[in-house]
């Protein structure tokens, strides 16, 4: 398709439509509202449904109801709404209902700075809902990536029967860029596996070789039960340890065994680098600029831009750490994903660049951290 000036939030909506999303339930909140507005306009054109619910709790609930009805569904929100959605995100993980939750992050906590960016919900995306549960979270840094990762979020949610969180930020959401979208035929779209057995043989939570059991839609003759309680393979509540433990193992396996499929990242100038800057979302744009300037100044610096935040791509950093590299991690929070990086490579290999005041991290701040990092190494 020919290039056009496109907003990040609009790209998210277009990506959802391209991925086959036909239901949006949402509630207005800055800085995500444009996603709902585009969906309200575009969904009925393709026979889909947009519904503005009474709050974010109802929004995610309606999304899950629609998904159970066999429709690809999503909602979009920001920090305060994301907090309200947590219980039902856990329900989606427990009942293994595909859905996409977009969080265009703004500075928090509480009402915070509604029109300013942040990356403060990274840990909430991972652990916001109570109890141990698997989750996938992706984070784009350009308008085109927003489109691609939204498609990807739907594909992962369908493939792995799990909620997928798209962590955008106010900068990426409101930024307009010259963007060339892929032609429809070139977009890979994954649909959930449907059962191919008679209803009597169908178990919606069965252990399968791929760890992901087929998911029948309501109204297709399978008449099964869905609950947020721990359940057996038929979906009925259970207290049996020999059914609870295998369930836990399976739902974590479906992510951990497919980490390579789920992990997306981009490396630039990493081979000869002594220091690797790690960033994601809008911050990756500043990071790239900082790395370019540093290299022009003769410093051996590389960049890893993360697109998948959860599951945390430990394998990349283990490899780089083995090569003796050190890290600078920049994120618009007071240190969230950098804790994961420290866990993987060791605390003394990571220098963080953080701010949570609603302002973007500048290339200058990252450059400063690179200089200090390297000065310390040279000493």
């Amino acid at each position, binding site marked *: 398709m020919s290039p056009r000036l496109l907003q990040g939030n609009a790209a998210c909506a277009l990506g959802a439509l391209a991925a086959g999303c036909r*239901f949006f339930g949402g509630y207005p909140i800055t800085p995500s509202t444009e996603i709902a507005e585009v969906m309200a306009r575009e969904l*009925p054109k393709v026979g889909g449904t947009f519904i503005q619910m009474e709050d974010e709790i109802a929004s995610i*609930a309606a999304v899950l109801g629609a998904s*159970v*009805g066999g429709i690809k569904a999503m909602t979009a929100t920001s920090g305060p709404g994301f907090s309200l959605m947590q219980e039902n995100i856990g*329900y989606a993980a427990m009942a293994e209902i595909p859905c996409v939750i977009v969080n265009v992050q703004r500075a928090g906590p509480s009402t915070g700075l509604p029109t300013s960016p942040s990356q403060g919900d990274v840990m909430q995306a991972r652990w916001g809902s109570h109890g141990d549960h698997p989750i996938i979270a992706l984070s784009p840094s350009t308008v085109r990536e927003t489109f691609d990762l939204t498609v990807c979020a739907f594909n992962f949610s369908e493939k792995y029967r799990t909620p997928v969180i798209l962590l955008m930020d106010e900068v990426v959401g409101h930024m307009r860029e010259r963007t060339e979208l892929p032609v429809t035929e070139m977009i890979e779209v994954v649909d959930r596996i449907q059962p191919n057995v008679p209803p009597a043989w169908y178990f919606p939570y069965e252990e399968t070789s791929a760890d992901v059991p087929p998911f029948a839609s309501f109204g297709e003759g399978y008449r099964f*039960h869905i609950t947020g309680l721990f359940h057996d393979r038929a979906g*009925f509540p259970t207290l049996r340890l020999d059914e609870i433990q295998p369930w836990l193992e399976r739902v974590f396996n479906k992510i951990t065994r497919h980490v390579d499929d789920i992990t997306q990242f981009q490396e630039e100038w990493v081979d000869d680098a002594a220091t690797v800057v790690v960033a994601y979302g809008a911050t990756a744009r500043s990071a790239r600029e900082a790395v370019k300037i540093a290299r022009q100044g003769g410093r051996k610096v590389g960049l890893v831009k993360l697109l998948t935040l959860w599951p945390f791509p430990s394998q990349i950093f283990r490899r780089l750490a083995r090569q003796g590299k050190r890290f600078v991690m920049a994120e618009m929070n007071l240190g969230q994903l950098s804790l994961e990086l420290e866990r993987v490579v060791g605390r003394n290999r990571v220098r963080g660049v953080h701010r949570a005041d609603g302002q973007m991290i500048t290339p200058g701040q990252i450059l400063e951290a690179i200089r200090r990092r390297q000065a310390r190494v040279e000493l």
Partner: protein
Amino acid sequence: MRRETHKAYEYLRHDKRFPNMWCAGCGIGIVMGSLIRAVAHLELDKDEVAVISGIGCTGRMPVYLDFNTMHTTHGRALAFATGLKMARPGMTVIVVMGDGDALAIGGNHFIHTARRNIDLTAIIVNNLTYGMTGGQVSPTTPTGKLATTAPYGNVDQSFPIAELAKAAGASLVARSTVYHVTELDKLLVKAIQKKGFSVVEAVSYCHTGYGRLNRLGRPVDMMRALKEDAVTVKAADEMSADELKGRIVRGLLHEADLPEYTELYAQVIAQAQALVEEGQS
């Protein structure tokens, strides 16, 4: 509905999850029987029926029923059901909730579902308490009654479910009790058939959590109280407000022909698609 009673077996997951988990003498099973008889009477295809619930004693009802069933989070059943109904407008979607589920934690969803007038049937089993957690005060506990969290007597006013549903825009509102089962059967048939949001309140005093604490006697005494406390809509018309205090008005309380949400949205789709065809967008 004797014919339907004989068919109840076909609608239960009898080989899977019995006996049920409700206290002996509880009325929730009676409401479940009524729901089955109503669906059987209407000869609905089981594949085309979904029963959605929230949390609580009533929330456990769907697991016993051989339909498409979903036991969701506390208070949110109507929002889940709204999504499902929009995805599958042809499906008969029945939502079963308790009074705490529907009116406290789910109160906002309740009024907004009524406002949209989406074609769902909500059955509220009103037991005047939080039964599963052991008898705490609920939005329908009568003022002055005891609860474990109102040990000096409830000072809150109780929520009038029917008036609330009607004012918020529901198409049909009815009330009966688990003593008046034949009436409940008929009201449920009417509610399921009605286009739009219909609300049926089934009063079923909880004798374990509510009755014991308030010394209301044994389950049989409380069932007798239901019989004696209830008056028909017709009889209630002749009674003064004072006479109606503490009474349960039973029967069809409100019915109106109002635009239904999935039909309205189908028009939105038609309108948007017509614009696309005209090349206007």
